[in-house]
């Protein structure tokens, strides 16, 4: 990009700030000292959760259960459950996490259900203890309802025709956003323009920008993304570091970590240190993800 690129609004930062009156924008607090977990729906298949554990709570856990505990997210299906008390869920599943992270995207096994999450610990004896419970989320519906209205009844065949007329085949295939159309045009122009003189960049003053990576096409589509699971084992009493952060081992010394894998080169250093710190071993994975999109 040439130096005259008008790509972004950085003019503001180049301008001299009138520091005497402008309060400095500081980085936001790393934590607010709360112990809480919040669950948010992203789409019918995914939830996002973030949490925070206060120092006092951490200390209490340590005092009660010692250091050798594992942290997990216990995700409960609480569809139609009134007054959920931790025991009356329809079902649940666990996700091992470590407290170095403070958020997680949860892939749900079923659509059109309600969910709630406990951040909890598994004690050395294998007992689950809830540290904090989230709000309950009713997920956005996916698919047409099986219920018909007696007063406004519609026959199956008629309904199918109606869905087609209503454009059901286009659901979720892009927002028809202004800028998306413009972005596609811009990229096309960039690809075919010979003279770069005119071209510094597209969006000088756009209202709404399109998505970075458009993975949805017109009539036919393909969506794909990747996650990475790193797993292995060491001696149960060893200390395990991934990205220089401590990970808690399962009681048998195994570990398994799931992480997001975007485009680019990612180095994942995994290090085990023996209990007496006299020995250590390291394995470094270098993983490259490169996306190529072809359509014919």
């Amino acid at each position, binding site marked *: 990009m040439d130096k*005259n690129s*008008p*790509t*972004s609004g*950085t*003019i*503001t930062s180049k*301008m001299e700030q009138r520091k005497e*009156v*402008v*309060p400095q*924008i*500081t980085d*936001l*607090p790393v934590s*607010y000292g709360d112990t809480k977990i*919040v669950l*948010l*729906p*992203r789409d*019918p298949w995914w939830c*996002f959760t973030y949490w*925070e554990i206060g120092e006092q709570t951490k200390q209490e856990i340590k005092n009660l259960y010692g250091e050798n505990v594992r942290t997990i997210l216990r995700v409960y299906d609480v569809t139609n459950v009134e007054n959920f008390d931790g025991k009356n869920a329809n079902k649940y599943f666990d996700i091992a996490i470590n407290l170095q992270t403070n*958020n997680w995207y949860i892939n749900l096994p079923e659509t059109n259900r309600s969910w709630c999450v406990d951040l909890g610990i598994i004690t050395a004896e294998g007992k689950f203890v809830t540290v904090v419970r989230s709000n309950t989320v009713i*997920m*956005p*519906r*996916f698919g*047409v*309802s099986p219920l018909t*209205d007696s007063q*406004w*009844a519609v026959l199956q065949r008629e*309904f199918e*025709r109606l869905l087609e*007329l*209503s*454009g*059901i085949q*286009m*659901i*979720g295939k892009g*927002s*028809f*956003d*202004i800028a*998306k*159309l413009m972005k*596609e*045009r*811009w990229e096309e*122009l960039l690809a075919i323009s*010979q003279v770069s003189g*005119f*071209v*510094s960049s597209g969006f*000088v003053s756009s209202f*709404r920008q399109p*998505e*970075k990576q458009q993975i949805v096409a017109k009539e036919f589509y393909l969506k794909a993304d990747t996650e990475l699971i790193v797993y292995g084992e060491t001696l149960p009493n060893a200390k395990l570091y991934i990205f220089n952060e401590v990970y808690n081992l399962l009681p048998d010394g195994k570990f398994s970590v799931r992480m997001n894998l975007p485009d680019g080169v990612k180095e994942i250093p995994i290090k085990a240190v023996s209990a007496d710190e006299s020995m250590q071993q390291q394995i470094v994975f270098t993983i490259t993800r490169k996306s190529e999109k072809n359509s014919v």
Partner: protein
Amino acid sequence: MPQGYWCLVLHNHLPYVRHPEYEDFLEEDWFYEAMTETYIPLIYIMENFLKDNVDFRITMSLTPPLCNMMEDKLLQDRYYTKLSKLIELAEKETWRLHNQEPFFSTAKMYEQKFKLCMQIYEKYHRNILTAYRNLLNTGKVEIITCNGTHGFLPLMSSDRVRKAQIRIAVKDYEIKFGKPPRGIWLAECAYSYGIDKILKENGIQYFFIEAHGILYGEPRPRYGVFAPIYTPNGVAVFARDMETAHQVWSADVGYPGDPDYREFYRDVGYDLEYEYIKPYLHKDGVRRNVGIKYYRVTGKVGLDKKEPYNPKWAQQKAAIHAGNFMFNREHQIRYLRNIFDREPIVVSMYDAELFGHWWFEGPDFLNYLFRKICFDQDVFKPILPTEYLEKYPKNQVLQPSASSWGDKGYYEVWLNGSNDWIYRHLHKCEELMCAAVDTYHPQIDELKKRVLNQLARELLLAQSSDWAFIMTTGTMVEYAQKRTKEHITNFLTLYHQLKENRIDNNFLSWLEYKNNIFPHLEYTIYL
């Protein structure tokens, strides 16, 4: 007797961008460009419909941030200066190109357009809200509101703060238009269970939703997206028709990409000699679009291969496209009428800024379209949501599905790896806002009242969905991050001053001066 109805909804929105602390601010251009290219041209065509007795109907959402910018003295004056400069450049251009057809006709066109814009702007004494008020009173235009700062309701932490977004919107609308709003555009069409209850409590009669909001509703919708439904709380919902969305938006079959239409990306800001164009650039002297463009889309060719724009051809094409759009609606509505026991309604929803800003000929297209609909056919009529509800007050009751009109149809555009970090801070501020109101209300002195009001402004501005959206799209990200952090920092600083009883009056006054949205705001919206 028409066989059905067509309802056009234009969503007019820009985030609140106003920087009195700078003389010249790049992102304010969003507002100035939209004024010249979209808002004022649309006012012009609507006023001409009235003059020429064209029986038209347009539903317009004017969001509270946009209304507040339109009414802001500083932005009004800055826009006046911007437009004056643009006219000066257009005049220079007609002189420079005086015997160089076809460029001369295009230069002349810009000069006339900009001057007309100024004429309308001055007619309303720089406040175009007056024009919208007049239009609203004709009954042909329905102006609706939107969430207070275009906040993304489903991802807020409680109904209490969702309510505040709606309450401030209703209050602001009443002040600006002299009556309560009948409908609302939910920001990003983002709906989740329970929002309808808040709307009902605030006197809102209807809102809009993405197609699958109704198609996935429970029980099954009898008329698909071609009739409104009532939510269990008794608010009417109209869903988007995908066919008309596709016709305008789609990259390959959509209208705006036609070879005869103006090319957005070939601007004199890049083409003309630097010294000549420099006075019309921002103070940093970086080449950017200035709004005068002499080339047409041409086809799939590079920017250097673009051919000159011909205003006449473009006008003809806009008329042809309007004819095509009308023909397709006639066909669609006739078909639907045959399979339904009542007249269908087809709802077309677009961002207003498409018309004029991105699709330069968009306002001309609408101009031709409504004239043709009025005079050239009798299959369907344009209609307002409230008119349709009066005709058909009895509608199916169903629970719409949570959804949005963003990419993939749910909330991912506003909740992904690029922006998920904002929610823990927004939620904390939301919690503290409610706590502060509970602590200090109602025995509160004037100073603390000002603090609570400003806390509310900072929170509302931080909640604008625009910031999360921009973070996802990857351009202008720095600005969006800055704005989010700025309002959260302001909020937390002010909150701690309040809590520790050491309110800094200078700081408070500075914030009131700088982030002045909703001058009439009262923190009691959070009660």
